[in-house]
């Protein structure tokens, strides 16, 4: 069994601590179980079932730390891993940035674990995928998709009495449908803690609509356009910006660095409609309540009315700068408005609806200029209506510049990043002057 209960984990970690002879010791247990199923050309291509459990121990003498990991849990093995970490610590170079361990903290219970997700089997996964393939076949489309569920837990304890335990479940699903001529393609992606919220049939219907609607796209000139980014497109773009790290900003090598030195804390960096925060107890995006720096995760505002409200200070950097350590992000939520996607389209005189973005890479870390492409459904809007599908574009745009050009925000939705598979709560957004730099023939 790779998933230990809080009591089992605590008992095991206490035993580990009892073997420690170092100045300081911390130990972590990580376990995960889960499975996945992948399909393409309307048939299952690969599927797997994986489980792991491991214990890691870090021992410190002075400022010298050593770490060791093991996946056997009898008493002899537990003592062996502690001794090994201590031997490595004695051989390690001194870490001038080592911070002494913290004592006990109060961590709230997270709301991230759902029993029905943990109970998924190869058969229940195959059944959910079967529904998706059926929709695609009926629509005469080719489906390729992926479903994965994971149950995981993390527990840690240190020699100063700190103990934390979090357990979570996750399920992610993504589906691409393409027409047989290869002229249309649609996509949908979903991520939840609770499998009961996942409807593979409806998600596949959304992808199928996009596939049919995007066929026979016309080419229009690249340039600056008003765009409506659906949440899955906006999420992937903004994910590249969610690093509110004080140290790199203070060192002068981040988009949050200030010319002349220092960082942009307190500066108006974006449009005042922009509010970005973390909250481990948001019901639609619950997250962990413990953090590896040993401090509890609480609700925190990063951007409030466009102003940088908080930056993350590691314990080392906080001490160096004479400020409080933290705060820590456990999830990212951006406030939306009340407008539906249809209403955002209706109020657009001339613009482009972007269903999804793809292959985003950093071009310039200073301005956060990103390049990437539209994919799986790009549409031209005129006088409040979708007129026709258009060929995909490459863009060169910075999410910071983009969030200065917000015309309107739509409803917030839980979306997953198409690259990291992390979940976020991000609204659809209407952005003016979004920069497309060339056309792509890709479908």
């Amino acid at each position, binding site marked *: 069994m790779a998933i230990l209960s809080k009591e089992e984990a605590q008992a095991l970690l206490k035993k580990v601590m009892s073997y420690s002879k170092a100045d300081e010791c911390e130990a972590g247990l990580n376990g995960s179980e889960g499975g996945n199923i992948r399909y393409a050309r309307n048939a*299952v291509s690969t599927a*797997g079932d994986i489980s792991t459990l*491991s214990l890691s121990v870090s021992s410190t003498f002075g400022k010298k730390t050593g770490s060791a*990991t093991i996946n056997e849990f009898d008493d002899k093995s537990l003592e062996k891993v502690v001794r090994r970490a201590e031997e490595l610590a004695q051989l390690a170079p001194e870490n001038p940035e080592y911070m002494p361990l913290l004592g006990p903290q109060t961590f709230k219970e997270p709301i991230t674990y759902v029993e029905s997700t943990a109970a998924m089997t*190869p058969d229940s996964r195959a059944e959910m995928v079967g529904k998706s393939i059926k929709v695609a076949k009926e629509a005469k489309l080719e489906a390729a998709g992926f479903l994965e569920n994971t149950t995981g837990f993390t527990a840690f304890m240190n020699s100063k009495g700190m103990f934390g335990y979090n357990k*979570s479940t996750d399920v992610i699903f993504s589906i691409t449908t393409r027409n047989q001529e290869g002229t249309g393609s649609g996509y949908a992606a979903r991520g939840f803690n609770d499998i009961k919220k996942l409807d593979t049939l409806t998600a596949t219907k959304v992808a199928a609509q996009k596939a049919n609607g995007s066929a026979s796209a016309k080419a229009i000139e690249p340039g600056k356009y008003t765009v409506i980014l659906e949440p899955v497109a906006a999420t992937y773009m903004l994910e590249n910006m969610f690093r509110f790290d004080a140290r790199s900003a203070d*060192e002068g090598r981040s988009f949050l660095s200030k010319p002349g030195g220092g960082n942009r804390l307190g500066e108006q960096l974006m449009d005042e409609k922009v509010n970005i925060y973390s909250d481990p107890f948001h019901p639609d995006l619950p997250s962990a309540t413990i953090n590896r720096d040993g401090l509890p995760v609480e609700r925190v505002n990063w951007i409030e009315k466009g102003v940088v409200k908080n930056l993350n200070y590691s314990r080392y950097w906080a001490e160096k700068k004479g400020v409080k350590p933290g705060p*820590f992000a456990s999830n990212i939520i951006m406030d939306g408005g009340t407008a539906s996607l249809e209403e955002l389209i209706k109020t657009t005189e001339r613009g482009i609806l972007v269903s999804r973005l793809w292959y985003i890479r*950093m071009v310039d870390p200073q301005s956060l200029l990103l*390049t990437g492409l539209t994919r799986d459904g790009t549409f031209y809007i005129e006088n409040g209506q979708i007129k026709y599908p258009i060929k995909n574009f490459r863009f060169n745009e910075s999410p910071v510049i983009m969030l200065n050009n917000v015309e309107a925000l739509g409803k917030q939705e839980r979306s997953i990043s198409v690259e990291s598979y992390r979940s976020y709560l991000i609204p659809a957004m209407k952005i003016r002057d979004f920069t497309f730099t060339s056309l792509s023939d890709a479908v």
Partner: protein
Amino acid sequence: MKRKDFLQLSAMGVGGMMLPDLGLFGRSVEVSQLLNDGMDVSVKKQLADVALNAARAKGATYADVRIGRYLNQFVATRENRVQNIANAESFGVGIRVLADGCWGFAASNRVTKEDVAKTAERAVAVAKANAKIGSDPVQLAAQKGFGDVTWKTPIETNAFTVPVKDKVDLLLSVNAAAMAAGANFVNSVILAVNEQKFFASTDGSYIDQDVHRLFPNFTVSKVDRASGKFESRKSLSSPVGMGYEYLTSKPGSKVSGIVTRYKDRYDILEDVKNATAEVSQKINAKSVEPGKYDLILDPSHLWLTIHESVAHPTELDRVLGYEANYAGTSFLTLDKLKSKNFKFGSKLVNVVADKLQPGSLGAVGYDDEGVPAKKWDLIKDGNLVNFQAIRDQAHILGLKESQGCCYAQSWNDVQFQRMPNVSLQPGKTKLSVDDMIKNVEKGIYIIGDGSFSIDQQRYNFQFGGQTFYEIKNGKIVGMLKDVSYQANTQEFWNSCTAIADESDYRLGGAFNDGKGQPGQSNAVSHGSSTTRFDGVNVINTARKI
């Protein structure tokens, strides 16, 4: 960072978001463990037989077992201090079966007779669950068994035998050289990999392989506080399928020119001094005027363009649609291949797939489904002539046997089609880089790889670089910055007008070519000589926020 590592962090939500991307490869071990031989081959063979028999007993028509021990050493430093030393070992078994015409896979880190038998049974259960929802049965190309065979990367010095202290001392001297020359920040890393892979299948193969890779690299940065500008220059090293000898000297392994570049040996101390001088020049360089330029691309840059625009679109799984939901499909289709006259590039363009090339990341004796390594043409005199296939795809190309492109990043990942080394062949007539530049009226000479992005069918791409030199009337006149080029793959390769001869040929590559769901990394090399492309669209990437 690989997707699996993301999951390890995100099991706690986004709690790991603000952590540095440290090497999370497996369980950490003391350095001496990296030199242990691990489980004896005869024991692995017995365990494999247990698994194969258990799979057959449950109804599998084919099964393969991979008992893998994956060792990594990661030494990371920053300025005057060590950031992380990680010695990691990952050991376990992955079992793939065909049952009821469907694939099933299961993996476990417990490698006992009982556990491998249970894992094999789980794999069969997964296959049978999938078969219930109806699929075309898998057609597996025949492969003869080889009995007991071994293969090892031809290394001179196992990197794990070099003391950690020597690696730390080398990296700290690299950092000191950068700081003394005026850098504000420098990060340097040595990453060593050893894959000890035992493969057995119901075809009668028991293949034991010992694969070694090494990647030393650094990034030097300089901040101009007054303007708030910062610039970086990465090392011009490559990840290699070699031992620690890559970091020693050997006559004839350097390429002189505007900056020293490296073949099968790397002088990291020389390169960091050059990088620090260049990063200062970059801050004051002229911002590029957008427009059409003739590009002269160094192999340290061109490898990535080959990777994205030639190697990926010739992957047969992409061509067929198996990657449609993630990496995408391909503008190259079976029809284009069958036509035998699809002009991928100009007549000068010859591209080979090669799993045999010494020193390359993709070199092995056998792939991860028991097929011997091979070499074949992908593009011949500019025409598309072949793709890259594995055993369950070979029949689609009318092949009797697989091309040997199957790979799994670890024992707990299922093997699937991954690219071999894909390389542009050098020019057949004698041509130096200096002579190539002499003929360019308005051009840019690009060294080192930078930002990269390409669409899901591999038509439209954009690449940056490390350093950019403006060429006017046959002469290099100074450094440029804010340069990226955008092109269409077929137009780009048809604009190839010159390729330097084999004396300039070098390999580049990556440890982290990503594909698949769940995502997996593949290590692969791409060779070329310096190559000229005419009239490519260059954009200016400077922005102010």
